[in-house]
């Protein structure tokens, strides 16, 4: 599907239902204007997110992936976000190995009351992805060098 040619990039968000999806709703209710690039996939818990989802998104053409869950210790399911944190941190370290710029993937914590924080997260991440530009599939030599530098 056209992403409104060059105006938007393809950014996918995986949000836990209880905190961050609620936070995004709170941002909407508060009319906190945000860039339109992000598309949200609702999942019950950040612990539900298989790193595979993020990889599939990035390999399938997404320019950026944002994951957000409940703040640590405040998980609706007690400890799901602790598992998420470990998995996602590992994934982030692993992305350069796959030739993916790790800056294309971020994870964060936003509670259901933090509408304004959600706005800031979306603005900052969207700006970051626009700074990187569209993903180009497998990287070419110059980008590999950058990736190696980031990995170091």
């Amino acid at each position, binding site marked *: 599907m056209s992403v409104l040619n060059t105006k938007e990039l393809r950014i996918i968000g995986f949000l836990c239902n209880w905190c961050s999806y609620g936070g995004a709703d709170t941002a909407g*209710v508060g009319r906190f204007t945000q860039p339109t690039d992000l598309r949200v996939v609702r999942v019950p818990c950040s612990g539900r997110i298989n790193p595979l989802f993020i990889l599939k998104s990035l390999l399938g053409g997404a320019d950026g992936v944002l994951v957000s869950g409940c703040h640590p210790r405040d998980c609706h399911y*007690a400890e799901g976000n602790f598992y998420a944190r470990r998995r996602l941190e590992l994934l982030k370290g692993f992305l350069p190995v796959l030739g993916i710029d790790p800056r294309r993937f971020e994870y964060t914590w936003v509670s259901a009351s933090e509408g304004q924080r959600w706005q800031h997260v979306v603005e900052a991440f969207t700006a970051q992805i626009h700074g990187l530009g569209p993903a180009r599939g497998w990287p070419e030599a110059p980008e590999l060098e950058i990736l190696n530098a980031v990995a170091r």
Partner: protein
Amino acid sequence: MRIGVFICHCGSNIAGTVDCAAVAAKAATYPDVAYATDIMYACAEPGQDAIIAAIKEHQLSGVVVASCTPRMHEPTFRKTVERAGLNRYMFEMANIREHVSWIGKDIEANTNKAAELVRMAAAKLRLNKELKPKSFPVTKRLLVVGGGVAGIQAALDAADAGLEVILVEKQPTIGGKMAKLDKTFPTVDCSSCILGPRMVDVAQHPNITLYAYSEVESVSGYVGNFDVKIRKKASYVDWVKCTGCGLCTEKCPARKSYDRFNEGVGPTTAIIIPFPQAIPKKASIEREHCRLLTGGKCGVCAKVCPTGAINYAMEDEIIEARVGGIVAATGYDLIDWKIYEEYGGGRYPDVVTSLQYERMLSASGPTGGHIKRPSDGVEPKDVVFIQCVGSRDPSIGRPYCSGFCCMYTAKQAILTKDHIPDSQSYVFYMDIRSPGKGYDEFTRRVQEEYKARYIRGRVSLVYPKGNKLIVRGADTLMGVQVEVEADLVVLAVGAEAASESAKLAEKLRISYDSYGFFMEGHPKLKPVETNTAGVFLAGACQGLKDIPSSVAQGSAAAAKAIGLLSRDMLDSDPQIAFVSANRCVGCGKCIEVCPFKAIQEIDLRGQPKAEVIETVCQGCGLCNATCPQGAIQLSHFTDNQILAEVEALCRF
């Protein structure tokens, strides 16, 4: 599959920045979409009827509604499709209001985004399965955490409705902040006269079990069947034997202990009964002040106790209980007023907090209801009240209005005049906020009848001069600087969430905002529910409120709990994990990660396999992401369903 798509205008909420007809036209081209239309208000009765009619007319087998957040109306539309004969889980929502129309004004981008969200929802719906709930029995017992006026009201209402109630209170007595108040606004009626009988009702009610001086240790389980551990703190007094005679408190030699109930206005003993009307009226020893427990020498209370109730070897006790629902009513605390160095709180003895002043006014307080300056015991003539100490101040991270300070300051000014007729009160205020029944009349009365001088402006400095305090501030209405010679300065200290509210929220698995107040299910429509089924909120723990509102919310929380626990059986949410036995290798990783112990190992023809206990699983999907085989899948959020959403975005 035949999918019907309904794009809601929500009046102009969505249609204002999204071309709904264009979204519907685009949706009609998506795979399996048999019917797509836009609709004015999908949730209104005509809207729901139109959905039902379309399901029947076009033989739809699944429905996508693109409207507001599913956290708002998913249950509504699930019932709608159910009324049309579909399974309620053959339904998906696309959130094109909170996530699209309300956060951007670019119609082209919004329309495109809305269409894509609908594509995602439709792609997921194609893989939805019909799900049916299981039912499980409910424990008809309610836990109320916090014995302030909100918790008392909730406990009494629930107990009167026939529920067993467990009331847990952190302090040695129930009553909360209201018990500390002398009078209440706007009627100036005696606080303990109206609260006292309620407290007695709690003690005498056959359905209420009160655990005072106790805290919630842990909570496990789920709606209908929470398993709660309560830590009964060691009071070093056997409350079965204690008659509350108070002999021990008279004889205790540790007379310099901090008096928590009286906000430190006067000292107290190490063994205390907080106040005469305390419920339960039992003595307890504060360990850090007791000479025997800290120094090993004393034992006076044990010698004088006529019933031999003192037990220095007492230890904390853990009580376990199963309850069907929980009401959190943990109230508030005052913010730390000492951070305002300019007011001299904590430095000058004659600068007191509003709650300390309340104890001075109270006939049962340490001064016997006589207003005396803490420094020299002299009756003050000029009393200055400073409002908004810690309220509406972003610089200390408290930008909100505490809500009740304007009113209690007005009340305290009236009481000051009543106690000391030749006194003069001055009130430095930012705005007078009195939106309640009879409230504004009250704040007028204090100025017109009681001649309190209201000065609109902030105080910049309080400093001592002789035996007086000079309060320097601005009068912004006159545009001049003013200085008032005061005998006593009362700080109207703002409130914040109770100090350990975040810890409790984590135990109850409910959300709290950045100030520590618990999050209600919906700011308007679910003011006492939380997003955790079976947990309800009452009183100031949800957001600051005065006594009438706290009582109202206590009753509301009780009504919700009664509604829940009036049922014998509850339906479990069928969005839970399930195991494909032929893919499961029996590694047990899912059993390890499950936070609810909802997965057990079974033996299937000699092979170990995982099995989900259906009424225990809460549907977090942690096991799903852990399983190396993809054998355990979360219904309604399977790997394939989530990947279908991703693919709907990425392939094109």
